[in-house]
């Protein structure tokens, strides 16, 4: 079990961090948050084409680098740190993992190479009335000539309103399956939702006899679980990155802010608050490294490791983000200051795909308590 990065992986991290610091500073994030623009397409293309960051788990046969989940989690962490809105979670995580978990060669050939060059945005739609991916599925699919049609509604679809393709989990008369829907399909209504976190676009998708192609799969339910577990690993890494940055904001502030004649970091209450965030950071980094390593090396331990990662990191990130605001005092509460962006990303991440309560219940079952 390896929980430390090798030199190549450290170099990858440094490369991504530098790139994002240069190409995606907070001012760019703000443009999206303030509604002045969508995600930076040029940045996304460069991340894909020039740096190969979207094809890390894609096999070389499809144009990827065939690296692994440790590498991908490094990128996720840096993106979480920078908060920069990109279709990474939807396209380079959810859709890629779905295509690799399903058995549809045509879809892989069509979409995976496009992901590696940043030419397609894709997403996976599972959540319905609640964020959970383990809830009831009512969206239905029935055959219609040589294709299928979907009816129903999907909620909280990441990048759902801009995606070129959506992989939809729906129920047929013979059990569940995944269906490929084009973004411009007939009978598809896409409502971009107002979100707590402006850096993570979410949409509601309504299907009314929407044409779709059924994707080959031996076991769609099992594939869904696997996609959920791998998403958990990537998202936990992203959360850990944001947690680390939020902690740094507080520590940096404590080193410059003076009240009552001395730096506030010299008061134990403030110092210990910063340390509690640091402790969370160290624990979460360890758990995230473990989960990513398991994703690469121990396929049967993945469900437990994924639940562990989400259950530990989700509340920790939100706790650190909230504490960062608190340690800043009034300025931390302003729109202008960045702390609230981490707070909102943390809360959203905590609940996406299923809240910690559900993760814990799942884990209780998986641990055989």
């Amino acid at each position, binding site marked *: 079990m390896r929980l430390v990065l090798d030199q190549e992986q450290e170099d990858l991290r440094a490369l991504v961090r530098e790139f994002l610091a240069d190409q995606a500073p907070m001012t760019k994030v703000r443009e999206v948050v303030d509604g002045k623009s969508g995600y930076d397409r040029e940045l996304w293309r460069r991340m894909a084409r020039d740096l190969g960051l979207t094809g890390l788990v894609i096999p070389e046969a499809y144009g990827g680098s065939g690296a692994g989940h440790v590498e991908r989690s490094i990128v996720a962490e840096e993106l979480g740190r920078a908060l920069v809105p990109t279709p990474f979670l939807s396209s380079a995580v959810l859709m890629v993992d779905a295509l690799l978990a399903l058995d549809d060669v045509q879809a892989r050939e069509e979409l995976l190479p496009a992901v590696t060059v940043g030419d397609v945005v894709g997403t996976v739609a599972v959540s319905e009335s609640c964020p959970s991916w383990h809830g009831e599925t009512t969206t239905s699919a029935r055959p219609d000539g040589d294709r299928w049609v979907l009816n129903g509604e999907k909620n909280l679809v990441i990048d759902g309103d801009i995606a070129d393709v959506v992989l939809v989990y729906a129920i047929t008369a013979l059990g569940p399956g995944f269906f490929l829907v084009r973004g411009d399909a007939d009978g598809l209504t896409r409502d971009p939702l107002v979100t707590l976190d402006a850096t993570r676009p979410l949409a509601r998708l309504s299907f009314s006899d929407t044409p779709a192609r059924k994707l080959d799969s031996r076991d769609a339910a099992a594939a869904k679980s696997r996609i959920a577990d791998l998403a958990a690993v990537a998202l936990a890494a992203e959360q850990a990155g944001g947690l680390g940055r939020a902690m740094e904001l507080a520590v940096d502030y404590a080193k410059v802010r003076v009240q009552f004649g001395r730096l506030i970091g010299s008061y134990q209450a403030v110092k210990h608050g910063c340390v509690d965030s640091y402790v969370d950071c160290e624990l979460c980094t360890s*758990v995230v490294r473990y989960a990513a390593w398991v994703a690469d090396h121990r396929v049967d331990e993945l469900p437990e490791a994924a639940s562990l990662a989400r259950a530990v990191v989700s509340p920790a990130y939100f706790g650190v983000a909230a504490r960062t605001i608190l340690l800043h005092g009034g300025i931390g509460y302003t729109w202008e200051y960045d702390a609230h962006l981490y707070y909102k990303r943390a809360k959203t991440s905590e609940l996406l795909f299923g809240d910690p309560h559900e993760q814990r219940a799942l884990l209780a079952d998986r641990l055989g308590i």
Partner: protein
Amino acid sequence: MTEIVEEFRVRARSWLEATAAPRATGSLSPAEELDRARAFQAALFDAGLAGITWPAECGGQGLTQAHLLAFNEEAGDFDLPISPFLIGLGMCGPTLVDLGTSAQQARYLRPLLRGEEIWCQLFSEPGAGSDVASLQSKAVPDGDGWLLNGQKVWTTGAQYGDFGAVLARTDPEVPKHRGLTMFIVDMRAPGVTVRPLRVMTGAAPFNEVFFADVRIPADAVLGSVNEGWTAAVAMLGHERVSIGGAVQQSSNPLAFSSLVETARRHERNEDPVIRDELVGAYLRERALQLLNARLKQEANTGKAIGARGSVLKLVRALNAARAVDVAGMVAGSEAIAWTEGDTAAAALSMSITGAPGLAIAGGTNEVQRNILGDRVLGLPKEPQVDRDVPFRELRVGTQREI
């Protein structure tokens, strides 16, 4: 030619398999435990497996950290009865290696390594715990030696200790850190009184130690006169000897696996609230395990843990406190009353009453947070009102005696 690590590992493993018992819950008397420990340590030494990283001229094996790690990894599967020697092996011995004179090394290191002489560490006093540098035990010149007077507290192992590393004040005219000297004290010398210190678990693993005109010879200074603080920092800085590792023993009643077993025994493991609490215990324990493993791996790549080790201690104490809550929920009445002879209940009670100690001994949770904040995060230190004041003028501890 130095034995390569994997060959050393194989040698260590086969010796351990032949000599050491697998993890067991013993029920020997303290005297029997001590005999068992001495016999084991002597055998370990004679097999060339003691003092793995200590210089060969000091009685050690002169091998590398990698060898030590290999040994510790193999040793993790066994129950090594070496707790009486942990302070000697982990703290006093390495400090003798660092700072001792060749005469001191020649006299003390081999018997220490072989388990023939047991060492203790005498720093803390009733008036000097977190602020140990404000200690008041004093050593005044007497002929060519010294006369030691004062009181130490929390001394582990003093009840069977042969020698101790004691910190005493030798110059009250300078600020507190600068007027201390570390001495080697013979725990059986006239004037040394050891009194057991009973803690809330009911056991007495610690002692109070009183010094009344104890004669200390001239050659018993460890390091230099008035340089005791440097020696103390060096001693505290040595990594705790981690033979057996910091792995949670499954026999620990507060470990996740034990809590689940207890819950099952009381048929409480189906209750969703209890299940959630048990998962919480698992998350805390597993995250700490993974952090421990990661820091070890980082240390192996040359990135020393340093002050970050305080995270491990802090989290372990915090986890234990939460685990006590969970234990109460799953154990029910057994946590508060049990029939004589119920060893499981007694063990649980011991860990419930022992948990507060984890948050205090070796530096309280608050001190650990101070260390992390100042040394790892680089936060500004709290103003120190006593740093440059001559000790004689300070308000210290519980007495004002100069």
